[in-house]
């Protein structure tokens, strides 16, 4: 529990002390002012000594020596009760036998005027007087008169009473701050404003049982001895702003030396912290009866010895606490010290303490606490990273601060080789670095952080490794590469290369993994990944370089590097189809896919590709036909694609293909090709005679007449009809087909012509549907033309009427009429009149006519001369 806050140092050698040999004389009181030390003794002497401080080897280890100056006995042999220096007046106030005399500080002579204050039991000086006169001290006495306090102004050699205040009970002790008196009365403590007379009870206290203590400890605040050995704090407003400290029951004197309360009893000097109320230090000290602070220096005395409590520097105390792992106390002390240390210095110190505290928690694996302290102490993360062997890049120039923030060489030392602890530490660092790498804490050491993080991830095979490398990062290339190789993270290494623009190296590595030369199964789908990578790779050379390798591995997936390229690149057409096709000659499947891509997806209208694709389809169909018997899905599919291409495309070389399939049994395809070359008769003959596929024949007529004029369509249908009807061998099914054709497509035929064509034997019944349809069509057409005619006539009449109306009356043109356009008068009889009556020059009308935007209110000009 203890801290060393103070050292007790002897101030005055025994032989220097007055009358050590005479047991009767003892030190009653003392005063210290600068180097001057005054002692008042029980035999009425004042001794003046000079005190010299010599700083020791370490801060806080200073020693003292004293030398005797004058000594003087005041008139009586009565003990000197109290001594107070008023250095501004060069006077010492001495209370002896109920009288306060003024003596010269150096020669100890009483002032010539003999000024004095009589009838004082005890007195105190106001350290915060409101008079504002620097050559005057305010003295407050407890008077021998019952229940009376008196205030005096004391000057160099005169004394003036200022005020007399009577108190509700007999006062025993007094302290003063400004107008406020803090009084220990018989049964309680009170605050009394001597200016207004207002008083405020603090708390009850029995002065008969124990000696009260009233001590001003700072602006407007007092320290009081309370019940149960408490040291209580009270402000002039009568409230307590600090929790009490707990002394022993018989405290004689107490004072504050921030942040500590020092108290004296018969056996000990105790030191409590005002910050957490804990007792921090106990110094054995027998027979002490004086404890006072003089300008921040605490002096204790026995009847025959004077000692000084020298505070150890706060930093030292804090370091002691930290080295005992008492983090909380150290932080409280550091925070409490804030107002005693210049701001800049404090911040540097405090940050360091936070960091040290962080490492203490860290070493105990209390990571949340450690993290918070590292954060608030703005720790240079490299301090932390450097604890982990090999994590800092070899190129890093970092060295730990001196003196070190902790005692550990590295993590092995800290965990004493405990693997589990080590792993916990690593996991902590991972999450910590990940958290801060994008914050301002990382500024200036991003490389070190990211590289360390990469190493941790790699070692732990953590999935975040890929995310790290896949996004913006500052991993140092050389260091990371070695580490990734060490942990066989070749895929990740590839990502690293890629991030640094070394795609060639990345691909080489990945290809090796796929080829089984390196082992890393981070990505089971690495091949597809590479294909994807190349698809989006802007470096054409690389794509060409790996095209063969890719296609050998898998034509169908591999071809994606050409067919799935990003849109913007497709538009640039950086891969010329000719080049690709010549590259693909060894990979038929890929070639086919590529041509499909070029012809069907891209819609390139080049004969070469269309023909090539058609030929490939044909070859595939023929090949499949040769190997499979019966139904085959694959065959059907290819055939369908083939037919589709033949039908849709207008770019392939029809004759070349016709030559190729003339002798095959691909009749439909032949028909399509004949159709393409406008040889519909041949085509229809094939469809009807050889394939006997009438519905396809019908469709043939439809698709071949798509986007063509109706006459063309009619001709096709008539042609089909002729094929049906004019067969050499009469065939029942053909006749039926002919009837169906007529009945279903009545509108496509020229009915008159059909009627001439069909055999006379056919009944009207048979053709009734056709006839009705044809009839309807012709009636419809007739009516439509009548309607059109009628409408046209009506329109014509309307225009005639308008013309008539416009011309029926005459128009008088005078110089009053102005042209509506140019506002000039008419100089010639020719003019233009608009239907709404406005008149304009002919030339104006003409120019206006060419500029339709300005004619919106004049319409359909009618001319008149």
């Amino acid at each position, binding site marked *: 529990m203890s801290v060393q806050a103070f050292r007790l140092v002897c101030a005055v050698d025994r032989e220097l002390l007055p009358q050590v040999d005479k047991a009767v004389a003892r030190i009653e009181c003392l005063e210290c002012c600068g180097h001057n030390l005054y002692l008042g003794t029980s035999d009425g002497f004042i001794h003046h000594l000079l005190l010299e401080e010599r700083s020791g080897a370490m801060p806080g280890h200073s020693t003292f020596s004293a030398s005797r100056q004058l000594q003087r006995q005041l008139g009586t042999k009565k003990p000197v009760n109290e001594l107070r220096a008023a250095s501004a007046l060069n006077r010492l106030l001495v209370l002896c036998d109920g009288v306060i005399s003024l003596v010269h500080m150096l020669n100890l002579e009483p002032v010539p005027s003999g000024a004095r204050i009589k009838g004082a039991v005890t007195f105190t000086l106001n350290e915060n007087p409101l008079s504002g006169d620097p050559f005057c001290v305010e003295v407050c006495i407890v008077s021998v008169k019952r229940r009376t306090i008196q205030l005096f102004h004391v000057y160099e050699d005169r004394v003036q009473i200022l005020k007399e205040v009577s108190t509700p009970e007999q006062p025993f002790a007094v302290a003063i701050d400004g107008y406020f008196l803090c009084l220990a009365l018989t049964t309680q403590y009170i605050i009394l404003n001597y200016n207004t007379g207002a008083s405020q*009870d603090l708390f009850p206290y029995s002065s008969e049982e124990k000696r009260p203590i009233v001590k001003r400890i700072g602006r407007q605040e007092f320290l009081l001895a309370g*019940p149960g050995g408490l040291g*209580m704090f009270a402000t002039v407003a009568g409230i*307590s702003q600090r929790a009490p400290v*707990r002394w022993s029951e018989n405290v004689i004197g107490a004072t504050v030396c921030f942040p500590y309360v020092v108290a004296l009893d018969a056996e000990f000097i105790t030191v409590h912290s005002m910050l957490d109320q804990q007792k921090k230090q106990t110094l054995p000290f027998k027979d002490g009866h004086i404890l006072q602070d003089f300008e921040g220096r605490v002096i204790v005395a026995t009847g025959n010895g004077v000692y000084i409590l020298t505070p150890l520097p706060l930093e030292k105390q804090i370091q002691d606490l930290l080295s005992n792992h008492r983090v909380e106390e150290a932080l409280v002390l550091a925070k409490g010290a804030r107002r005693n240390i210049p701001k800049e210095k404090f911040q540097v110190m405090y940050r360091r303490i936070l960091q040290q505290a962080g490492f203490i928690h860290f070493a105990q694996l209390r990571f949340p606490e450690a993290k918070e302290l590292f954060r608030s102490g703005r720790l240079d993360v490299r301090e932390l990273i450097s604890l982990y062997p090999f994590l800092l890049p070899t190129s890093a120039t970092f060295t730990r601060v001196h003196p070190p923030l902790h005692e550990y060489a590295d993590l092995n030392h800290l965990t004493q080789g405990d693997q589990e602890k080590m792993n916990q530490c690593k996991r902590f660092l991972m999450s910590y670095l990940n958290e801060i790498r994008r914050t301002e804490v990382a500024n200036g050491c991003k490389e070190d952080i990211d590289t360390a993080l990469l190493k941790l991830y790699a070692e732990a095979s953590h999935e975040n490794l890929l995310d790290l490398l896949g996004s913006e990062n500052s991993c140092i290339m050389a260091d990371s590469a070695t580490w990734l190789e060490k942990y066989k993270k070749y895929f990740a290494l590839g990502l690293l290369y890629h991030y640094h623009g070394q795609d060639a190296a990345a691909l080489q590595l990945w290809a090796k993994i796929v080829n089984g030369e390196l082992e890393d199964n981070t990505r089971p789908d690495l091949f597809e990944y590479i294909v994807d990578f190349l698809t989006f790779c802007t470096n054409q050379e690389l794509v060409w370089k790996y095209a063969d390798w890719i296609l050998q591995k898998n034509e169908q997936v591999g071809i994606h590097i050409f067919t799935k390229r990003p849109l913007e690149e497709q538009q640039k057409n950086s891969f010329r189809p000719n080049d690709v096709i010549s590259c693909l000659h060894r990979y038929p499947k890929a070639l086919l896919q590529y041509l499909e891509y070029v012809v069907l997806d891209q819609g390139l209208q080049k004969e070469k590709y269309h023909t090539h694709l058609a030929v490939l389809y044909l070859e595939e169909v023929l090949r499949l036909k040769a190997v499979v018997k019966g139904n085959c899905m694959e065959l059907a599919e290819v055939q369908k694609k083939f037919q589709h291409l033949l039908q849709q495309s207008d770019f392939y070389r029809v004759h070349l293909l016709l030559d190729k399939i003339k002798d095959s049994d691909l009749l439909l395809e032949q028909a399509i090709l004949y159709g393409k070359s406008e040889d519909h008769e041949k085509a229809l003959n094939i469809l009807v005679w050889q394939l006997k596929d009438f519905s396809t024949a019908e469709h043939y007529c439809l698709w071949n007449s798509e986007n063509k004029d109706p006459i063309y369509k009619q001709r096709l249908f008539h042609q089909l009809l002729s094929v049906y009807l004019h067969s050499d061998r009469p065939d029942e099914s053909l006749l039926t087909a002919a009837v169906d054709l007529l009945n279903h497509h009545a509108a496509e035929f020229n009915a008159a012509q059909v009627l001439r064509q069909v055999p006379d034997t056919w009944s009207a019944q048979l053709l009734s549907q056709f006839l009705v349809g044809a009839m309807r069509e012709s009636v419809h057409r007739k009516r439509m033309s009548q309607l059109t005619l009628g409408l046209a006539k009506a329109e014509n009449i309307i225009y005639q009427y308008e013309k008539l109306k416009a011309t029926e009356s005459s128009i008088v043109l005078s110089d009053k009429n102005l042209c509506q356009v140019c506002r000039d008068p008419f100089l010639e009889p020719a003019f233009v009149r608009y239907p709404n009556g406005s008149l304009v020059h002919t030339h104006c009308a003409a120019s206006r006519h060419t500029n339709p935007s300005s004619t919106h209110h004049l319409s359909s000009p009618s001319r008149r001369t």
Partner: protein
Amino acid sequence: MLKKPDVKVVLLGDMNVGKTSLLHRYVEKKFHETVSTVGGAFYLKQWGPHSISIWDTAGREQFHGLGSMYCRGAAAVIFVYDVSNFQSLVELEDRFLALTDTASTDCIFAIVGNKVDLTDECASVNETEGEKPCHATTGSTAKVRKQVHVEDAVSLYKRVLKYKMLDEKEAPPAEKMCFETSAKSGFSVDFLFESVFDTVVPLLKKKANGPSETVDLTDSNKAMKGTRSGCCK
């Protein structure tokens, strides 16, 4: 720099009722053995823009005299009793209420019955069931009869208001200011402190704004109407 606390909340109550334990529970989220408080202690709690000092006082008779000083200027006083000890409630009125004379004039009050974990809440049910005497059955888990019920606290609250000469209609309602807690289990502890803070903080703003300089006619009209209708009835 530490911010000066701008709100003071004081815990009062007989020794051993669990004031220190309540505060520990609230501040540290833990329950551990305490020693009887000597003098007093306080914690600072940041509550929004306010820094609240919560004073834990000593219940022991010896330190009774310090109470007035601790209460001086308090914005809220939390009276704590032990639900298993009726006398602890009585003491609040007899000994502690007078200490609040020094509190701020618009001080609010809360009354807290602590240690509810000790009492068998279903004791009343059990009573009718089996008429079993309430004795310790299994050592530490023994439940004792609840000696103080919320209604007792509510009526004390009303007497507190009367003592302070506060209008029952203007002071926070009793249902809102009487609590039952257990520092041991943590039951209702956060709720208690947070409710008190939430009640106190809006009052501060009012105080900070001070009484308005201008006369609010609408308000005084209302007040007049109120009194008139009051006397007509």
